[in-house]
Each structure stands twice: as structure tokens, then as C-alpha cells.
């Protein structure tokens, strides 16, 4: 798909979201809900005593999974799968840069995910919830988070070029 057309469509989805719900899109928040739900069911005592968990429990009525972003991300999974089927892209695949080793990619993906997960909680949102939705409503925090994400990725790109380039 033409990237600008995809951008306009994504923008309209975001605009519709803001119009209907008054909030933007997101992704990492659903992972947070998943983590809290897991901790609450695996170690309920720890969840009760932990500072963050108890704060979250007070804020969330009806359990951690009764959350807008959880349902939204479930929709994302279905939508992406549907699109993949449509474009004939579905299938188990392990993608890596031409020079990267399997273990390098595995560790990179895990570590990258962990860093992104941690960072998104610290910054109160990831590329979707903070940067994209923030830009739509011109939030100062959202836009500086966006610059921080992309600036830092450019700054580190040189050091990890072996993961991606020929």
C-alpha cells in the first residue's frame, strides 16, 4: 500500500477513535494490563503489597483486564491477521538481518522488547499511545517522547548495524 495512503487511513482511524472515545490509540498499556493480571493471579499477596500494583488496582474497576486498551489490542491481533491473510503474508517466519545470527536476533528481540516495555511505562506510552496520539492532540509530552524515541534510535543505529545491514 502507498505509505501516504496508509498514513491517511491510520490518521482517520485515530481521528475516529478520538471522536468516539475522546482518547487516542495505544499498545503498551495492554501489555501492562496483562502483566498486572498475571501478577495478581500468580502472586496475589505480592500484588496487594506492591506499591504500583495497589495503585493500579485502586484506579481500575472490574479487574486489570477490563480495560479499553486490552480490547483494542485484541482487535489489533484480529485486524493484522485479517490483513495478513488478505495479502497472503501469514506463516511462521523468523525474520532477521542478512548478517545477524539466530541467537543475535533472539537476544536482540527479547532485549529490545524488554527495553521498549520498560521505557514505555516510564514515559507513559509508546509510539502509538504517546507519540502518534500525542501528535494528534499536540501534546507536549507526546511530541518530546516521539523525538526521544527516534533520536535515540538514530543515535544507537550505528552500533547495531550488524543486526540489520548487509
Amino acid at each position, binding site marked *: 500500500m502507498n505509505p501516504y495512503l496508509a498514513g491517511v487511513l491510520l490518521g482517520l482511524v485515530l481521528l475516529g477513535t478520538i471522536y468516539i472515545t475522546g482518547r487516542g490509540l495505544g499498545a503498551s498499556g495492554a501489555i501492562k494490563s496483562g502483566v498486572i493480571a498475571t501478577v495478581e493471579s500468580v502472586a496475589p499477596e505480592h500484588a496487594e503489597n506492591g506499591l504500583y500494583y495497589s495503585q493500579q488496582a485502586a484506579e481500575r474497576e472490574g479487574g486489570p483486564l477490563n480495560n479499553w486498551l486490552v480490547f483494542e489490542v485484541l482487535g489489533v491481533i484480529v485486524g493484522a491477521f485479517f490483513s495478513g491473510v488478505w495479502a497472503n503474508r501469514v506463516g511462521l517466519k523468523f525474520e532477521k538481518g542478512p548478517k545477524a545470527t539466530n541467537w543475535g536476533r533472539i537476544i536482540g*528481540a527479547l532485549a529490545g522488547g524488554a527495553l521498549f516495555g520498560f521505557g514505555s511505562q516510564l514515559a507513559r506510552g509508546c509510539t502509538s499511545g504517546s507519540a502518534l496520539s500525542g501528535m494528534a492532540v499536540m501534546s507536549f509530552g507526546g511530541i518530546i517522547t516521539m523525538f526521544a524515541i527516534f533520536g535515540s534510535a538514530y543515535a544507537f543505529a550505528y552500533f547495531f548495524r550488524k543486526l540489520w545491514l548487509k
Partner: protein
Amino acid sequence: MGPLVPYIISSEFNLVIALIIGFFFGFVLEQAGFSSTKKLVGLFYGYDFTVLRVFFTAGVTAMVGVLLFHHYGILDISIIYINPTFLRSALIGGAIMGLGFILGGFCPGTSVCAAAIGKMDAMLFVLGSFIGVFAFTESYPLIKDTYLADAMGPVTMFEVLGMSRIAFAVVLAFVAIFAFVATWFVEMKVRKEPAKISKSRGMKYSVAALMPFVIIAIVAFVPGRQEIIQNKIAEAQRQNECVFYEISADELANEIIHNHYKINVIDVRSPEAFEEFHLPMAMNIPIDEITNRKWEMVFNQDIKTNIFYANDSMTVRMACLKSRFVGDAKNLILTETASEFKSMFFEIEQPDLATASKQEINEYNFRSNAVREMKQLIDALKNIGQPVVREVEVASGGC
């Protein structure tokens, strides 16, 4: 007027909406090619700027759309969620995310998309993000101070830069289009292809690039909802053609006693004046607040008749006129002012039975009875009789 949640769409149904919105979100991300790390990291090595194009186009489209919706009164931007700014944690968190981006090749949303179509590296990334979030929630007591430092509240970029909303929209659209052109040249150079574009494609892109500016210009120069209402009122006043249906104080008292559930008695004076004295069963909507979203349910319905009163005929007519442009409820104005009503009913003096005419005596009997009945009614309906306090629910969001 949006946002539709929670007044028009209930909070429970909102979760169904979330599923549907998520479907489109995932579909568009996957269609844009964001389910492949090659596309995503291409941005950082200069060989593929798809991410920047999609991302910036989406941001500008939504931003311009929000402006336009606000301009025509479709969306109330004073209550949408604006990500609060915590400067330090935003910068540090953003930097950590950037490192995660270049290491893992995904961001959370795109990794979910890629995992959904079977990319195993993306599944590892998602697993990693669970671990990362867990690390955050566990170490929260240690990083709490950083997390909460430099709280600035939900400030916007244009407020920080000290420019108007419109000016910032123009700047952002310019930056986006400049970035599109510049990165296209970079991309062609890295790929070692000639930087040429066919004439018809160039035309199409130029027209598309003009679109956001056209919409911003509409917002800046064409009258919006508030101005349209003001203009209509001014026009109606100038032509002196507006007809006001009036109701007298005695009729109103009768309505209050017998049909209180069919009417809204609306006091358009200031809250202080309302506090001092107001009609039985009245609610207070100061005249400047009539176009406020929270009163839409009062002015845009066809069940109850709205009866306005104030302390001068100018204000009450203005209020009645304003409310006509907000909704299509049936509106009446009280002929008497608030203080006249007060002296007619609550400060009524018994006429001298010997000299008073029959009509005066009847009037006295009616009014003193009415006062008693209205007081009884208020007692009986204590909760309904309280001034209605409504609050606007501000949307929450973010990750």
C-alpha cells in the same frame, strides 16, 4: 457533539468499540508493511522511510481532523485526553524505547501485528515487552521519583512554544512535508536510484500536500460553530424578526405545581443571584454557559419545555435565542423578571378584604395557595429540587 463516550455511547459498549477500532488499527498497520522489521529499521539506516511517511501522515491527518471537528463543534477538545507531560521520564523513557527499537526492530503495536501473522521474532519481542513492563512494575518504588518528576500537566506543544493552535498546525504540516521530500532524496541516494518522479505523480503528491493547509485555512478563516451562532443571533436581532413565546408568572406557577415534570425552569442569571433567590424547581444555567456541552441534554430534546427567566428582558431574550441554535427544544420566556416573581408570590400581602376587588382577592388566594403548593412540592421532590450539578467527564487514555 463528540466525544461520544460516555454520554452517547455507554462505557460498557466502549469496549466493543475498542475491539472494532483495534481491528482497523491492526489492519492498517499490517497493510502499511509494519509487520516486517526490514521496513521498520529501514528508517534508521536510510534505505526505507515508510515508517516516517505513514507515521507523520497519520499524525497530521488526525491533528487537522481534530482541528476541523473542533471548529464545527463536532468534537469538544477541552475534554479529550491530552497526554500529561512529565519531562524527565518522557525523555529517559523515550531514549530507552529508541534503544529497544533499534535492538528489537519493532515497537509494541507493530510487534503485536507481526506476531499475529506468525513472525516468531515479533513474538519474542512481545514476550520481551512483558518482561520489561514487569521489570518496571517491580522496580517502581525505586524509580518513582524519576517517574513523577517535572510534572507539567496536560500541556500542549503550542502552549509551550507560545504560539496559537493554528500556527503550530501549520508548522507541523510544513515539517512533515519537508521531511517527506528530504527523506525521499536520502532514500534514493542510499538505494543509488535516480531521484526522479513522473509529472502526474508529482502533481498528485502536490495536491495531497496542499490538503492539510486548505483545511487549516478553513479552520482559521471560515466562521465556526460559535461564530455561526453569534452571527445568526446578531442577524435575528438586527432584523427584529424573532418571535418569543412568553408565559406569565401565574401561568408558570400553575405549570410548576401541576406539570413540573414537563418543564425545565432555567435561571440564566449568575450563580450568585441564583443562590440568593431562584424560582421553585429552577436550574441555573448562566447565559454564557448555554453553548457548553454539558447542557446539551437540556436544549436538545423534545420532551420538556424550557422556560427561561432572568432579571431583565434583554438577557432572557438573548438566552432564549442562543438556546434555539443549540438544540430544538421548545423554549418559552417568563414575562416577569425574577424579582417581580419573588414579590408577586413570596412577598405577597393580603389585600384589605373590605376594599379589594374580587379579582384582587382571587389573585391573592391563587398566589398564596401556589406558594404553599410549590413549597410542598419542593419538599416532596427534595432531590430533584436541588440545583442540578453536572460534571463533564474528561476522557482518559495513553498507555
